[in-house]
């Protein structure tokens, strides 16, 4: 049976079903509803977890690191400036190989103050060694949170799950909340092998000389590479139990496409509608949704775009001085391909400006008209 809940609460239910043991968080719009609900679950006893109220996001992540080091399943949630404040500890969490799961509600960074949707906050944390999933619906959010624990605990790397501010966080959708028993079967209790144990004290995060450091980073990267096969494995298992799966990427009507839209997050849903309209009108347009940004699904992307003449990447984010961050990643995995599409990079919808079907049609029309993009970045919705 489906329940109509907002995206924030979809996160909360996913966390509760995952039988998290420690939650440490600091409120920030538009994330606050997530931990509010979780604190209610803790207070009512529905969730047997320690809820830590801390004085900043930095402390939130620090206490998650501590709790995870002793072997607890831990969770936190944040957004925007809060995520930025955690930055140093994000590196620590991944370097220490701790399977922490965090939800980030994508929101623009200030100034100017803006609480609306923008992916630049989490994409700024691209190189911190965290897995990153970008979700499209409230259901996907709930399912991804549960999957994230399983994936993280297998690869021993932390995982960040993203949802769009307001488009998901504050929007109510019908969501199937799985029953606990089946979730328990999917996600059993986990035992960390190397954990902080006062009975057998060991030194954690100590000094590693140049003699071993490169190998330890190599191992970290290998785990990310391994995640590329573990994510679909876990997703398949989830699909078998719950009937829903998402994959590393999702290719929609890409066969024989003249051009393909590359999307992430909620824009994918809007994009799908527009793709259907073009297909109905006889134009072969497809859509590729990138769900896992880290690890970046290079092989899957290359395979699905083989033979496609043009792609239009929609980035609701900006790396100032370079451009859209998804486009940048996409170009880099394609650059050595002999038969590669021309990449049109659109930066649109920053700071929560709506990306409408009209906007996406404009993107498609321009891409179809031009042989090559006239500029490296195409600002399709800028007032001129």
């Amino acid at each position, binding site marked *: 049976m489906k329940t109509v809940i907002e995206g924030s609460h979809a996160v909360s239910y996913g966390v509760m079903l995952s039988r998290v043991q420690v939650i440490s968080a600091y409120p920030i719009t538009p994330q606050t509803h997530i931990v509010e609900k979780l604190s209610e679950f803790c207070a009512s006893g529905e969730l047997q977890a320690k809820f830590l109220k801390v004085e900043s996001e930095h402390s939130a992540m620090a206490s998650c690191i501590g709790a995870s080091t002793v072997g607890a399943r831990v969770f936190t949630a944040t957004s925007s400036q809060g995520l930025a404040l955690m930055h140093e500890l994000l590196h620590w969490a991944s370097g*220490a190989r701790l399977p922490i799961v965090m939800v980030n509600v994508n929101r623009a960074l200030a100034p100017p103050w803006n609480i609306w949707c923008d992916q630049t906050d989490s994409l700024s944390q691209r190189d911190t060694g965290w897995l990153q999933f970008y979700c499209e619906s409230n259901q996907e959010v709930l399912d991804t949170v549960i999957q994230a624990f399983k994936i993280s605990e297998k690869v021993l790397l932390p995982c960040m799950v993203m949802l769009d501010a307001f488009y998901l966080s504050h929007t109510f959708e019908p969501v199937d909340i799985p029953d606990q028993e089946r979730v328990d079967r999917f996600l059993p209790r986990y035992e960390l092998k*190397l954990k902080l144990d006062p009975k*057998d*004290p*060991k*030194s954690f995060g*100590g000094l590693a000389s140049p*003699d071993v450091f490169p190998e*330890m980073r190599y*191992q970290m990267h290998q785990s990310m590479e391994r995640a590329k096969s573990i994510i679909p494995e876990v997703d398949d298992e989830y699909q078998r139990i719950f009937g829903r799966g998402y994959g590393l990427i999702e290719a929609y009507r890409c066969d024989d496409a003249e051009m393909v839209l590359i999307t992430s997050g909620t824009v994918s849903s809007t994009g799908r509608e527009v793709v259907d309209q073009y297909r109905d009108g006889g134009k072969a347009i497809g859509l590729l949704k990138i769900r896992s940004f880290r690890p970046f699904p290079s092989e899957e992307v290359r395979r699905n775009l083989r033979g496609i003449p043009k792609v239009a990447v929609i980035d609701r984010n900006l790396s100032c001085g370079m451009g859209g961050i998804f486009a940048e990643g996409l170009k880099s995995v394609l650059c050595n391909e002999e038969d590669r599409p021309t990449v049109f990079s659109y930066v649109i919808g920053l700071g929560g400006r709506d990306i409408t079907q009209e906007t996406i049609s404009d993107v498609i029309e321009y891409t179809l008209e031009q042989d090559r993009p006239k500029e490296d970045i195409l600002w399709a919705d800028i007032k001129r």
Partner: protein
Amino acid sequence: MTQKIVFRRLQDIPPIAVSTATIAWNKTGTWRYLKPKYVIKTPPCNEACPAGNDIEGFMVLSREGRLREAWEKIKEENPFPGVCGRVCFHPCESSCNRKEFDEALSIQALERYIADSQFNAEREGHQRKPRRKEKVAVIGSGPSGLTCAYHLARMGYGVTVFESFSSPGGVLRIGIPEYRLPRAVLDHEISDIESWGVEIKTNTQIGKDMVFEDLKNYQAIFIATGAHQSRRLNIKGDHLEGVFSGLEFLRRIHTGERVSLGERVVVIGGGNVAVDASRSAWRLGARRVQMVCLESREEMPAFPDEISETEKEGIEILPSAMPLRFTGDGGRVKRIDFIGAKLGEPKPDGSLNPIPIPGTEFFLDADFVITAVGEVPDLSYIPQEVSVHKGLIQVDEMGLSHIKGYFAGGDATSPYHTVVGAIGAGKKAALAIHEYLQGGWSREKFRMIQVGEKGTISLNKYFHPLEGDANPPVVSFGEINTDYFEHRPRISIPQLSIDQRRDGFKEVHLGLEKEIALEEAGRCFNCGVCNGCDNCWVYCPDFAVKRERDRYEIDYDYCKGCGICFEECPRSAILLEEEGR
């Protein structure tokens, strides 16, 4: 631990940054490069007390109401808490760190309170018989002589005190007036000294009733005969009837002689004897008492408290004037002529050098004149070999004279006539005599028992040497963490009203109520001495401070040397020193 681990292959390298072996051997205290340490430092009051009282120590005890123990603590160093609690000029209070915060602790009043609390308490019958064969003679039963005798008796020596006067006490009995020191208090403390086995032979003047030859059977002699000779003015008319020296006047009234004063009394002098004489004359019924001195009001050598009490009692002080002559009528003094003067550079012998100011002559009518312009020792009786310089017996800081076996102290050796100085000198001499008789004195020993740098010594340290630094540094106000103290005014000491004082020689200062006294003791900062406040224990972020009853210990296995305990100690009883590597 020193074994080098080499990783040759990727699979040998641990997946996460964790030590390959236990770190149980490596307690977190190894991070430390600064090390906190509990220390006992020297409170400034203790350093300032010439008698060597452990003031901080008796404050702790009295705050807890352990008055008997407080009394015994004082008595370890000083047999005269009741006397000092009344007549001392309390240099301890002048150096109290609390005066920088609000007002100095009322130490003297508390010392008196402790002594008074034991006045009627049951006495332990000491009545010790000498344990040692050596005998010591003490000449003079003033504060210095009796203190020396007391400590020697406590150390087990047979001591005989020779006193020329008919009862013991020296200046305490024949000099200081009863309104400052009731004789019952003095008698009580002297009888306590006697109970330790000290024998006091009164009416026995060395040089008259006995000679030094008669003291051959004593292995050491302590000379403490004070300064009982008044300086003369040597001006015209000073032999007239009705002109007395201050000491003579005080001696007479304290031995019960009737002195006929008349109505107008003039006292010449600005020191403590002059003040005592003026205030006594006022109590004996003189209508008008005037004090005239060479010094300006600020330069007067009498203790400031005493001067202000003098003025309250209506005694006029006429400063900066020198007497020219006394004029009599029928052989009895009637008038004194003065001239205004200011003080020039002191004369080569150290005496005052008044410069008269022409045209400022005046005169006072007087029925009775008291001259108190300085007191000096009478040393005519001492053996010639004993070295005398500028009228004082020459001794070193511990009271040793140039002649083996001869020691001296008190006003006979010092120009600064204070009771507490005399007590300190008597104590040092007792120790010097003990060491002399046991043949082991050294400068090193003196250093070990010093309290600070002002010459004070501690017998407690002598008998119970401290671990570590024998003479730790004195705590300054800057080292006190005043965040932990509330501003609280010093108690005011109750006094007789002026009307009540006129009626005889009743003690002016009254005792304290118990509650007030204990609360005042609670104002003590306890500079440099742990009093178990728990701050270090509470603040240590690593739980490295262990508390065992009233003691603390640092578990250096876990102490990171953060210094928070050091910072938060209210009284600077923790040191932070560099870790030895």
